[in-house]
């Protein structure tokens, strides 16, 4: 048969196999084996087994350029090629299983802790090893073939099906949220989510799938026009945009009432990291200064808030008053904290401003590490408690609202500060200051030459970012009521950075989405907790390599990135003559 490229299938299949083995040894497959998505047949672990061959086949069957034109693989070639790719992936898994059995799973386990008898049982579906190997092979072939078919299917059919499958996975993953919300608004969730397996029931899954497919088809036919209409309307009358915002705000306001205490607690964490993300976004996204020591402001805010509101030290002999303590109301203290943090931002910023981008990143990393070492040190123990930390931070009560013991109440406190920070960021980005930051980020020397006082604007960015981050820290202190140095480590900086990067540098909706995805999802799924940092690391790499503008890109930023691509591509540059008229209209 023509059109088969056996060598590239084998290569893709091997990569898929290595990924599958990675997932197994990392413990993901077995860990998620218990997480039922649909019935008790479709678990996330099984989905993880089927994904590598399917994705490998999907990728390897992509259209190729041959002699200058794009060649779409035929249906038959796609199916056979996908199946071959899947066969290799399944083969790798099967061989690994057979080898582990021959070598002795306990001996493998002495090295790889996740290679447990339970994993073997999961992979063989509780049968003998040989049957298990055959099952893995057929899983590989079938999902590989499906991946190949999916690539060669007409997009008009593929998009709705993909939407349906994604909806199934999302609904399955949100199994601890949606049923609670349904009960709260008076629906019985039992037809959708089985109370026994916790996952979707098959009937529920069918409904979700059909609805998602229908929605996707509707969107393909009518949605684009609708969106264009909406956009045109909002360009004419800003009130449309504002009402969309009000609707979103109303949803945000009722969320904790719908979702109960457990989910609200997660949402409270999301709020704290939204604040951190918004603050870091000013420094990194707006001004283009990569700050890797953002945890310094977080820790500063938390500890200063604790000291200002009269928290006590934890010591081995009980509580003790710190060497420096005030008894202010939280609502006064938080502004003082923000002011002091802004001052700290200037103080940190001033000596390091002359440094080039990557050096600045490393210096701030060092400063952040110094702060987290100081929080554990015996030296500062009399003031901030050292390794034992502090307790008794104010509950910031107003009337019956208790922001420490009631996660639903805390959510609203967080929301209020997030809205404030959003407003500040939004006004800043649209102002003269925001434009100065933009100019500085794109080319510092040119900005300087245009008369922008870069020193002042850089310091301003550090001060604003520091103030917002410290408020996040203050809220964190109020939420927990006690502080230990374990909360103030470099991973806070990296998490905040991941939140900003995932959403898109300089994009305010991006920060919200980033925090919801990176903090909210792992918080809701206890199974993910262990892999949180692994996922953050992978996200940073994947976003930077595949989609540097982020999930919800800042419009202006995206144009800049696209322009970069255009100017790098000599061929496109030759074509650009035709586009020049358009480019000239774009705001600089």
């Amino acid at each position: 048969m023509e059109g088969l490229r056996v060598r590239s299938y084998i290569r893709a299949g091997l990569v898929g196999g290595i990924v599958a083995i990675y997932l197994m040894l990392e413990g993901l497959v077995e860990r998620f084996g218990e997480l039922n998505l649909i019935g008790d047949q479709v678990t996330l672990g099984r989905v993880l087994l089927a994904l590598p061959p399917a994705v490998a086949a999907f990728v390897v069957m992509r259209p190729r350029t041959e002699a200058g034109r794009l060649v779409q693989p035929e249906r038959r070639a796609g199916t056979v090629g996908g199946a071959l790719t899947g066969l290799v992936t399944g083969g790798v898994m099967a061989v690994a299983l057979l080898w582990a059995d021959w070598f002795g799973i306990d001996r493998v386990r002495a090295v790889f802790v996740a290679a447990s008898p339970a994993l073997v049982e999961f992979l063989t579906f509780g049968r003998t090893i040989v049957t298990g190997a055959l099952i893995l092979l057929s899983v590989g072939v079938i999902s590989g073939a499906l991946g190949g078919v999916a690539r060669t299917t007409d997009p008009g059919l593929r998009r709705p099906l993909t939407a349906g499958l994604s909806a199934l996975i999302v609904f399955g993953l949100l199994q601890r949220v949606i049923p609670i919300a349904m009960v709260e608004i008076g629906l019985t969730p039992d037809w959708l989510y089985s109370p026994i397996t916790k996952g979707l029931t098959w009937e529920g899954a069918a409904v979700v799938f059909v609805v998602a497919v229908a929605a996707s088809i509707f969107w393909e036919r009518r949605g684009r026009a609708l969106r264009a209409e909406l956009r045109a309307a909002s360009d004419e009358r800003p009130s449309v945009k504002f009402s969309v915002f009000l609707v979103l705000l109303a949803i945000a306001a009722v969320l904790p009432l719908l979702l109960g205490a457990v989910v609200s607690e997660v949402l409270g964490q999301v709020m704290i990291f939204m604040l951190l993300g918004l603050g870091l976004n000013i420094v990194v996204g707006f001004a283009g200064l990569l700050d890797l020591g953002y945890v310094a402001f977080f820790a500063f805010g938390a500890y200063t808030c604790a000291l200002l509101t009269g928290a006590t030290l934890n010591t081995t002999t009980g509580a003790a008053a710190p060497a420096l303590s005030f008894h202010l109301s939280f609502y006064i203290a938080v502004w003082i904290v923000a002011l002091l943090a802004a001052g700290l931002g200037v103080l940190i910023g001033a000596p390091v401003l002359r440094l080039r981008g990557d050096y600045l990143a490393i210096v701030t990393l060092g400063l952040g590490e110094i702060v987290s070492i100081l929080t554990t040190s015996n030296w500062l123990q009399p003031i901030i408690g050292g390794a034992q930390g502090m307790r008794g931070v104010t509950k910031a009560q107003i009337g019956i609202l208790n922001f420490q013991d009631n996660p639903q109440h805390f959510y609203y406190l967080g929301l209020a500060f997030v809205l404030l920070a959003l407003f500040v960021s939004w006004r800043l980005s649209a102002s003269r200051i925001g434009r100065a930051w933009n100019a500085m980020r794109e080319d510092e020397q040119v900005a300087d030459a245009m008369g922008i006082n870069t020193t002042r604007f850089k310091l301003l960015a550090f001060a604003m970012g520091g103030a917002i981050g410290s408020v996040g820290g203050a809220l964190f202190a109020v939420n927990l009521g006690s502080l230990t140095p374990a909360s103030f480590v470099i991973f806070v900086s990296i998490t905040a950075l991941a939140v900003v990067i995932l959403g898109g540098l300089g994009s305010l909706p991006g920060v919200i989405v980033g925090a919801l995805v990176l903090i909210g999802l792992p918080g809701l799924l206890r199974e993910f907790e262990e892999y949180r940092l692994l996922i953050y690391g992978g996200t940073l790499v994947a976003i930077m390599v595949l989609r540097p503008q982020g999930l919800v890109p800042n419009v202006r930023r995206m144009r800049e990135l696209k322009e970069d691509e255009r100017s790098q591509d000599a061929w496109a540059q030759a074509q650009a003559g035709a586009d020049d008229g358009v480019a000239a209209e774009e705001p600089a």
Partner: protein
Amino acid sequence: MATEPSAPAKTVQMSRFERLPWRKVILTALSVAIVAFVVVGAWKTLTLPAGERFSAASWRDFVILGLAQGAIIALIALGYTLVYGILRMINFAHGEIFMVGAFASFFFVDAYARSGFLDRHHIPATIIVLFVAMSASVIVAVLLERIAYRPLREAPRLVPLITAIGASLFLQNTFRGFFGSASRGYPRPQVLTGTWPIFGLKIDRMEVVVFVSSAVAMIGLSLFVSRTLTGKSMRAVSEDRDIASLMGIDVDRVVVTTFAIGGMLAGIAAVLFSFTFEQVNFLMGARPGIAAFTAAVLGGIGSIGGAALGGFTLGLLQSLGPALLLTGYGVPSPFQLKDAFTFLVLVLVLVFRPGGLLGTGEAEKV
């Protein structure tokens, strides 16, 4: 700068307060404060009452320890410096490459220790262990370059740095998932415990071995870079990548070679480090990684001699600094602040002399 008088007549009059060169004022104040802090601290420590004072022997031990640790730091620092020299990029994940080497060799050294091979034939066993550590580090370094860095070579400078941070976190947690989060004991060959008399001093055998093998590796590297053809093409690529490629040098190959050499040195450092501290865990790369980066910057990043000088200087600072400076102020448990010291040195070097001790000041701007 906005502080310079500008030509147009209608400039806004700046107040005297605004015209002050703030940066200079802050830096001067900072340096005066630092010098005062160092002098007073050292004076106070050295004049402590006899009972609390460190003896001459303990100062000598601090120096030797500092040199031995400095040697390991210098080996890792070479990896940063090489990559920076070629690509002008900070390979933040280099500390994890070091960790990978340590972990891979752990399983061999552990098996050898239990079967007795490590002590019966310590030289072949150590060579195998070294080889394993080096290959693992090289594989990971090369994969990292291929997957995470090569697609971004033309991207803005901060993009690969962010990727590198992500890769570092990813590798750490991958190894946590593979091998668990507990620390594992890394056995040391019996021969290397105890002391050897050298110049009338009893010096830990491990420290001697660390010092000698690092020195050999560093000399080997500088010979490689200055004498071989590959070394010549590395220097050419570091000079100007585009022109080097016009001269027929395969830039991709040179970059891969650079990462591989950095990985090899990290592998050697990993074995030496693990023999010294006798344990491995998935976080072990983070702090030594940053210390090594500091050393590279301290000596002048991009220069091989600078990395060596920076490593030894930092090792001495780490072992002497807390004792010499902080004890005098009565800071409890000063060695807790050892790493804070590293970072402080890093910040100060970058602020006052961004080009490093041997550097040209090139890092200052753009």
